């Protein structure tokens, strides 16, 4: 005679219900529903964010239309708002930070993962991860009290080497787009290093052994085998760094000079989107200025999506070529 419990199951009218109960018992459906809710909530938050930014910027969108993106005047007194100097400042400082930060960060990650003795590597990595946890306002203070005076002292040397380009012309007051780029670089390097190091460490040992067995030197193995393998992960770390530098507020506003004008020289002051929002939102003079600042938030959002998408396409096209 069968046990009561098996009998219970066998008399259930529908096979489908039966299957559902069984799966529920093993937890799969619960896990599915919970994780799906998590994933959907992220989408919902993003959609809500875009909707709110769009809704609250109706006033300047109606008044200026697309010319908001190309306007170069920001004048609360007469109610004229243009975003171009801020877009320019944001893009230039982030590009500068990446340009200096990628070689330094990836180079350091290669050393820590491939060349340094384990003890030194672990110790240094711990310190670098601590650096990633430092609040950005601390970097801003460091920037204004240490970096800016140091850059003023180093200015003749920089000018002697790079002064022939229009990028390093004009007077230098210490606070500038260049200073902001350097502070951002210091802030994003820990991200690049710690993630890239993990990714490089995750490359299977067989890959290295195979290359070494074929007669490659240690550096050839790293450069030709390990790095291409880890490329996607390294790119991921760079995206994260880019996102942080585009949105950075406090550290940038303290050293960029906060002048909403487009200057060719990196030694000149500039202004970034995140900085102008932080500076002016609390004391916005009227609803038009408030709306214009919210629209700048929308622009920053769009800018981040465009730059990230562009970078992703670039990575995809190069990785495909590599694997073929």
């Amino acid at each position, binding site marked *: 005679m069968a046990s009561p419990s098996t009998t219970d199951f066998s008399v259930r009218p529908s096979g489908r219900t039966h299957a559902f109960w069984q799966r529920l018992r093993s937890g799969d459906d619960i896990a599915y529903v919970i994780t799906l809710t998590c994933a959907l909530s992220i989408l919902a938050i993003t959609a809500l964010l875009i909707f709110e930014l769009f809704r609250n910027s109706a006033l300047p969108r109606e008044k200026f239309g697309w010319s908001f993106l190309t306007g170069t*005047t*920001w*004048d*609360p*007194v*007469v109610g*004229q708002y243009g975003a171009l100097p801020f877009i320019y400042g944001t893009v230039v400082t982030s590009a500068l930070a990446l340009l200096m930060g990628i070689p330094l960060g990836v180079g350091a990650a290669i050393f820590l993962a491939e060349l340094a003795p384990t003890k030194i590597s672990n110790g240094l990595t711990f310190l670098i991860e601590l650096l990633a946890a430092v609040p950005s306002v601390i970097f801003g203070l460091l920037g*204004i009290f240490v970096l*800016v*005076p140091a850059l003023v002292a180093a200015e003749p040397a920089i000018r002697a080497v790079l002064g022939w380009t229009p990028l390093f012309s004009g*007077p230098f*007051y*210490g*606070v500038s787009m260049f200073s902001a780029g350097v502070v951002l670089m210091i802030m994003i390097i820990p991200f690049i290093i710690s993630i890239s190091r993990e990714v490089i460490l995750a490359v299977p040992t067989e890959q290295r052994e195979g290359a070494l067995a074929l007669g490659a030197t240690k550096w050839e193995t790293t450069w030709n085998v390990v790095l291409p393998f880890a490329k996607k992960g390294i790119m991921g770390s760079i995206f994260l760094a880019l996102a942080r530098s585009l949105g950075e507020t406090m550290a940038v*506003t*303290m050293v960029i*000079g*906060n*002048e*909403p004008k487009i200057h060719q020289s990196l030694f000149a*002051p500039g*202004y970034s989107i995140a*900085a102008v929002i932080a*500076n*002016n939102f*609390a*004391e*916005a*003079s*009227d609803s038009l*200025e408030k709306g214009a600042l919210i629209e700048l938030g929308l622009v920053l959002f769009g800018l981040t999506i465009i730059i990230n998408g562009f970078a992703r396409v670039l990575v995809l096209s190069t990785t495909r070529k590599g694997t073929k």
Partner: protein
Amino acid sequence: MTRRIAILNVLLAAIVMVAAAQQVLINAGGATFPYPIYSKWFDQYHKKFPNIAINYASIGSGGGIAQVTAGTVDFGASDGPMTDVAIKEFQDKRGSAILHFPTVLGADVPTYNIPGVSASLNFTGDALAGIFMGKITKWDDPEITKANPGVKLPSSNIVVVHRSDNSGTTFIWTDYLSKVNKEWETKVGRGTGVNWPVGLGGKGNEGVSGSVQQTANSLGYVELAYAIQNKMTYGKVKNAAGEFVQANLASVTAAAAGMKEMPEDFRVSITNAPGKGAYPISSFTWLLIPSKIADPAKKKAIKDFLGWMLADGQKMTEALLYAPLPQAVVAKELKAIDKIQ
């Protein structure tokens, strides 16, 4: 025994209810500049009358106007008077008028860093406007040197530093420049933030003073209280009577006293004020109080507080480096308290 406990409970409940009925909680918010003196006042007042608690959030003048208009605070505070448009908006939304009550006075001072010059410089209004317009670019410009006989000024470029964040401090500064210089008024104008023709932006008083201290041959403006607290050197400014006046609490109060015709609603700019010894870049800061307060307990508490602030409160201002109101203004405000209904 149980009966006694029951009686005690009833008594206790009665006491709690009476206490709850008397407890008055008032919410306020706005300007950051007078926050130190306001928090001292509200704290002292609460110590004197423990059943009245006024909670003040220093969210900025713009926030103060917005919150009082939205009705989320019982009264607001602002470093600049509300515009006619803002007052109309308040009336449409809340169905009553908004009253301005000056509380204390503040001022802006020009601060500079010229290597080798330690003297307190004299500035005319035209010199300051010219420098901030980018028309006067060198320290040895005649407009500056003629006001400073005996001081050797270098022929270096002036680095202008202004506030990057919107601020009441900037409003006072640009309001003064607009009054003394027509070109400034038409080309730049006055506001909590303006389209600066030249210069670097620093966030907050600390950002401006930091940039000035680190940049040779620079000129910026900060609040008087901030300059005194940080022992900064700052210049004298020529007033409407033609004297170069050093900013201090007395000369700022003198600027308010010099206003012969105080308007009924107290919305007045006292920059470039007439009168001997008046410091020209001074301003009131205001409490914004609705003329109709529905809750009688709140209404009484706010009116009582205003009376106290104008008497005992004014004696606490100087220790915190705010200039007290002149007697004539106090007398006029005491009469205006009755407008709150």
